[in-house]
């Protein structure tokens, strides 16, 4: 048993940290916030690509860095801690990229992978629909063969960056008569195709990062099916052995906690600092403990992967615990800020650039996106504890 990192791993962390300290400065983050952006920067994505870190997890033969699981863990931990934006590349690097590597034809790999590793293309995910959220497999978007093309008609929703993506990886139904999981195909769709309308939705933070995407008889060449026809559901489940620790959540929480601790030490109430208040101490230390537990739960996933094991319920546990953690932290932060909590960035009285107010609201989405907490618990119960599915 050994909870320490090697010298090389520590050196790598130091390198990543130095880069992120410089590139993801308070000014950089502040600029993003000005634009109501928190998680999207093509410029930053390209800088990571130039550093050779964007596709660090990919095999070298596909333009990747061939990084070990631990290196990926360290990188993702530092990225999370620095609140670095990943929206410009996450879909490509972590989702569609690995599926292409596992299931793409040589031609598809040659065409689609290099722009992803170069950070030059933004992908969006065409999965959820108004009537297909947790029950994604019940999706209804139609895909009908017509000559050399497939014609796609339907609506996707909660599509992050739909309005500014270059490409969309999409699940649509090619066989309405087959059992629901077995009639879905996976498509690579050019967002400039005629018939596509992307409409961003305003979220409660006045930000427009996700939206609706309408497909009105959009023609997609047959060559743009990824994997076999009607096997799309299974292709999309490919996760490969890329790091799935979910470390970004506890790492991000750690940074926020540090900011709250600083705030508590500097802010006075009734002649003493907030940090002297036993209730504040209790809240902050409770969060510190939970963050460390979350970190260990994430590390456990990465450790399993580093040994070639496939984490199943363990990854769900990490996602569940990490996302719920951020909700609790947002709440604790708001409690400590008191009347100042609900002040938005822009007011000279808003502490920490209104970050806690933003985190508090934003965190609501974390226990819903990428598998709701309820679904994660189902997976833990079914696949981790083998409790019966009815």
């Amino acid at each position, binding site marked *: *048993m050994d909870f320490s990192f090697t010298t090389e791993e520590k050196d790598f962390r130091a390198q990543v940290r130095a880069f992120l300290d410089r590139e993801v400065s308070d000014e950089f983050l502040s600029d993003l916030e000005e634009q109501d952006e928190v998680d999207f920067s093509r410029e930053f994505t390209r800088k990571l690509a130039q550093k050779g870190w964007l596709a660090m997890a990919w095999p070298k033969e596909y333009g990747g860095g061939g990084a070990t699981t631990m290196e990926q863990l360290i990188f993702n931990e530092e990225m999370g801690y620095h609140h670095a934006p990943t929206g410009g590349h996450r879909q490509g690097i972590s989702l569609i990229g690995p599926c292409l590597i596992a299931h793409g034809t040589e031609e598809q790999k040659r065409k689609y992978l290099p722009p992803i590793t170069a950070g030059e293309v933004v992908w969006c995910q065409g999965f959820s629909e108004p009537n297909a959220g947790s029950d994604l497999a019940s999706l209804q978007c139609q895909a009908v063969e017509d000559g050399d093309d497939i014609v796609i008609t339907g609506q996707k929703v909660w599509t992050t960056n739909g309005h500014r993506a270059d490409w969309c990886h999409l699940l649509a139904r090619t066989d309405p008569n087959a059992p629901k999981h077995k009639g879905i195909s996976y498509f690579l769709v050019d967002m400039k195709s005629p018939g596509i309308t992307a409409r961003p939705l305003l979220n409660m933070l006045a930000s427009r990062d996700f939206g609706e995407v309408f497909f009105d008889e959009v023609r997609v060449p047959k060559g743009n099916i990824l994997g076999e026809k009607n096997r799309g559901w299974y292709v999309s489940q490919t996760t490969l052995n890329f790091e799935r620790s979910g470390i970004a959540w506890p790492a991000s929480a750690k940074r926020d906690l540090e900011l709250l601790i600083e705030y508590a030490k500097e802010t006075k109430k009734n002649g003493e600092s907030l940090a002297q208040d036993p209730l504040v101490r209790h809240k902050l230390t*409770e969060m510190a403990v939970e963050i460390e537990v979350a970190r260990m*739960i994430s590390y456990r996933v990465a450790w399993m992967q580093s*040994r070639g094991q496939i984490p199943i319920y363990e990854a769900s546990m990490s996602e569940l615990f990490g996302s719920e953690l951020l909700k609790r932290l947002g709440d604790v932060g708001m409690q400590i800020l008191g009347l100042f909590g609900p002040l938005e960035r822009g007011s000279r009285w808003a502490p920490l650039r209104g970050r806690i107010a933003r985190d508090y609201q934003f965190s609501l989405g974390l226990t819903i996106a990428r598998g709701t907490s309820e679904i994660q618990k*189902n997976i*833990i119960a079914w696949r981790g*504890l083998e409790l019966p599915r009815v």
Partner: protein
Amino acid sequence: MDLGFSEEQEMLRTTARDFLTNECPSELVKQLAADEKGYSPEMWKKMAELGWMGLTFPEEYDGMGMTFLDLVVLLEEAGRACLPGPYFSTVVLAGYTIMEAASEEQKKELLTKIANGDLIVTLAVTEPSARYEPDAITVKASPDKDDYVINGTKLFVPDANVADYIICVARTKDGASPEEGLTLFLVDAKSPGISTTLLKTIAGDKQCEVIFEDVRVPKGNIIGKLDKGWPVVEKVLEKATVGLCAQMVGGAQKTLDMSVEYAKERVQFGRPIGSFQAIQHYCANMVTDVDGSKYITYEAAWKVSEGLTATMEVSMAKAWVSEAYRRVTLLGHQIHGAIGFCEDHDMPLYFKRAKGSEPTFGDADFHREMVAKQLGL
């Protein structure tokens, strides 16, 4: 980074689990809870033969020379089986105190006997003020010719009723700070002036009130240096805290295992109750608490075993596990329904032990305050 145990540690775990499954069934646990002594001398002998008492003692004292982390594996299995008796007191509390501070002569005498299963020893720290802090120590030891004379009351002393020796933390001097002026005395439990009363606890573990009335202890029975006992106590409490977390993890895992098994077997409304989402989500919450408890405990245990500074991690582990084990037992009871409420079921063993363990060596609030200090709050 390697979060797993070694092959040898896994073998130790398997051996321990098999032994305890056979030798320490829950019927025996319940019998011993009602028994005055609270342990089985036959089992004690067998454990000594397995080398468990001297697991971490150097080989020159008939020990196995294994590490604290190895002991943690054993303690986890002990917790799983609710092992009753003075193992923890003798091996963790007393054993580490002696290894840390005793003279060569004392080590030879005491560790060898303990390793062979011939001696039971405990450590008396807490008093009616119920705190694990140096300023809470009011039991006094005053010099008188070749002896010290001890007066005062210790409370919550584990296994004092069966101990051959009680290592008593007493104040020998009022120093500039409360940490100074505390001394460790090896007291023969049969010394005149000692009154030991067994306290009845919900979990049946043997905790005692020990009243010292003019108890004479030879100067040669001081362990370590005069007035310099507290740093030793701190180190031992650190190991004890992590060791207890390991026991709690073992108990929590067993609670989870029992509950999942029951959820799969118990049929209501024509289907196993484990097919209902509420029960499934309870189980998911339980395994999350168990796994989180494991790894935060292992992190602290590894650091302590490596001799690294672990003040933050130890307190984080105890703060978390104290509450997580409780949560797990509450859900375990909920899943088992009414049968879990019966004395002849095993759930109450874990529920009660979880609660008994919560305040031991500092509750979550105490340890969170330790974390606060470490964070510079």
